């Protein structure tokens, strides 16, 4: 027990003798470690925030849109071509494994009139499964039922923003509005929901796909299949997202009779993929923040080295005495190395506490969520101790190599 305790108590005496100096040295490390902890916690918190928002859109969600087939070098914009059909959706549901629910959607622009209000809007026909697929919460009323769908009931569910525009603060449930040449009845309003993809569902006007088909003429392909605007689906096992995407791709290429040299005439987005890409990007950002903070830790380490060098010069005589008493080179460098590591360890612990406080204060402003995780703490403390060992090494080695006679003669 004596063996390891003695260098520690010697180190403590060394640190305690020069309180202000030790404090300033430790402060350098505290700032470095604190910066690493707080910046990385902000980075981690922010990426967790973004990810949870994306996952909130349904991490099991896959969206297929038509588009982007190059014909003779001419590339069409997404959605501008009509290649996806309701029959594709049925085939996917029947032939691809790990699929939970599939919903084809058909959107078209229609004129809405309510009292004096009049607007041109994108109306989307969807099957009732669409509610579960998109995780839609109902604020008032209800979503349309299987029965509404089967009989093609002329009912509509509005996004929160559309409701605001058409009805203001009035209760829209049961109200009628004119949609093109038809009269439809409002049965529900969606809860407002943040959407990252630009197509916020707050602007949605949803009717049963069957009703849509009665109100407007749904175009057909040359094979007679009913064209849809998109197909959304959920997978039953998120782990299998990649597999499902692959299967759908090959199924659709088959159905669309695309030769091996022809590009896909559809896009497949999975939230999973987007989440992975975003998480990689925010991970890089977190690392970058950590790297910037690590520079201040490095500066702190140089401070430790500086102080240790001063300390060695100041204690040359002590080193000589210890050597005369039989201390080996190893004893001397362990002594100085332990002292350096002691300084940086103390700095690391205090720095973790300081960083924690900073990240708590940052998150209490409510602007950014922060997240201090065990791995950051362990990393920061072990890096700071390593810095003590690395930057303490040269001074310690220098001390151990002093000639005892010269050292004893030093003033």
């Amino acid at each position, binding site marked *: 027990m004596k063996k390891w305790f003695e260098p520690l108590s010697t180190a403590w005496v060394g640190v305690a003798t020069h309180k202000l100096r030790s404090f300033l040295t430790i402060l350098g490390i505290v700032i470095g470690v604190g910066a690493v902890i707080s910046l990385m916690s902000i980075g981690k918190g922010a990426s967790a925030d973004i990810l949870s928002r994306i996952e909130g859109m349904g991490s099991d969600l896959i969206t297929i849109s038509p588009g982007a087939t190059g014909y003779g070098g001419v590339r069409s914009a997404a959605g501008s071509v009509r290649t996806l059909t309701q029959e594709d959706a049925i085939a996917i549901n029947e032939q691809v494994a790990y699929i939970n629910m599939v919903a084809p959607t058909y959107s078209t622009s229609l004129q809405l009139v309510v009292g004096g209000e009049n607007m041109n809007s994108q109306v989307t026909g969807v099957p009732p499964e669409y509610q579960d697929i998109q995780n839609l919460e109902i604020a008032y009323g209800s979503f349309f039922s299987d029965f509404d769908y089967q009989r093609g009931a002329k009912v509509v569910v509005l996004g929160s923003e559309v409701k605001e525009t058409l009805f203001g603060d009035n209760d829209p449930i049961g109200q009628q509005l004119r949609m093109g040449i038809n009269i439809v009845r409002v049965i529900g309003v969606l809860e407002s929901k943040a959407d990252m993809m630009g197509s916020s569902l707050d602007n949605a006007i949803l009717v049963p796909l069957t009703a849509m088909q009665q109100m407007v003429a749904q175009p057909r392909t040359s094979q007679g299949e009913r064209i849809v605007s998109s197909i959304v689906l959920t997978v039953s096992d998120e782990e299998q997202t990649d597999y499902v995407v692959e299967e759908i791709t090959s199924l659709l290429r088959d159905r669309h009779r695309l030769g091996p040299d022809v590009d896909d005439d559809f896009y497949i987005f999975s939230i999973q993929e987007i989440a992975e890409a975003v998480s990689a990007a925010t991970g890089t950002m977190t690392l970058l923040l950590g790297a910037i903070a690590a520079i201040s830790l490095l500066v702190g380490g140089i401070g430790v080295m500086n102080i240790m060098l001063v300390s060695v010069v100041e204690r040359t005589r002590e080193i*000589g*005495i210890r050597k*005369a*008493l*039989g*201390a*080996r080179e*190893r004893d001397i460098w362990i002594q100085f190395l332990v002292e350096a590591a002691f300084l940086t360890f103390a700095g690391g612990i205090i720095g973790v506490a300081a960083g924690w406080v900073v990240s708590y204060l940052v998150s209490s402003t409510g602007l950014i969520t922060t997240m201090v995780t065990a791995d950051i703490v362990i990393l920061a403390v072990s890096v700071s101790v390593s810095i003590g060992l690395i930057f303490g090494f040269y001074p310690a080695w220098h001390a151990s190599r002093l000639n005892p006679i010269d050292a004893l003669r030093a003033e």
Partner: protein
Amino acid sequence: MIHLQDITKVYLMGKRELEVLRGITLYIEKGEMVAIMGPSGSGKTTILNLVGCLDKPTSGSYYLEDREVSRLSSGELAGIRGQKIGFVFQTFNLLPRLSALANVELGLRYCGGGGRDRAMAALDKVGLSDRANHRPTELSGGEQQRVAIARALAKNPPLILADEPTGNLDSHSGEEIISILTSLHAEQGITLVVVTHEANIAHQCQRIIHLKDGQVVAEETV
């Protein structure tokens, strides 16, 4: 105990070679108390450093307890210092931040065995057990030197080397120190080598070796 054979020591002072010891041959028996005298620059301290394994000779052989030690590594020399040799310096060389007791304990730290009890016993032997917790700055010069002797003594070494142990002390304290050293020698049979330029101290030893210009010029038995 100690056998120096044709020892030379050359220091490089810039480009000039300075021959400090020029062929020293001497024997010191176990249990002897020997004084080394000589004018300054005669090489007394250099001999003491060599005998104390703090330094290595340029040429020649040094047998300590029949073991040739002049070619050992610095680590092995440190081991010998820790086990066999106690030093007493002119300037005491105590660590100012440590108490008297802690200073004595430091003498035990590098020889493996240790402990507060042994340190306390050593302090008791030099009559300072009541000042164990005082720091060197709170002690008189004579008391500091007694602490230093206790430090050298604590590990029970066969050999104690004293380099002008009374040089920084008034005559009264000096006599006290010498009487402690002589009684240690008489009671415990410790081999004692004292470097001094004070004749009255040298004459309390059994043998006096006179050095001049790096050579032994005379030996007298008291």
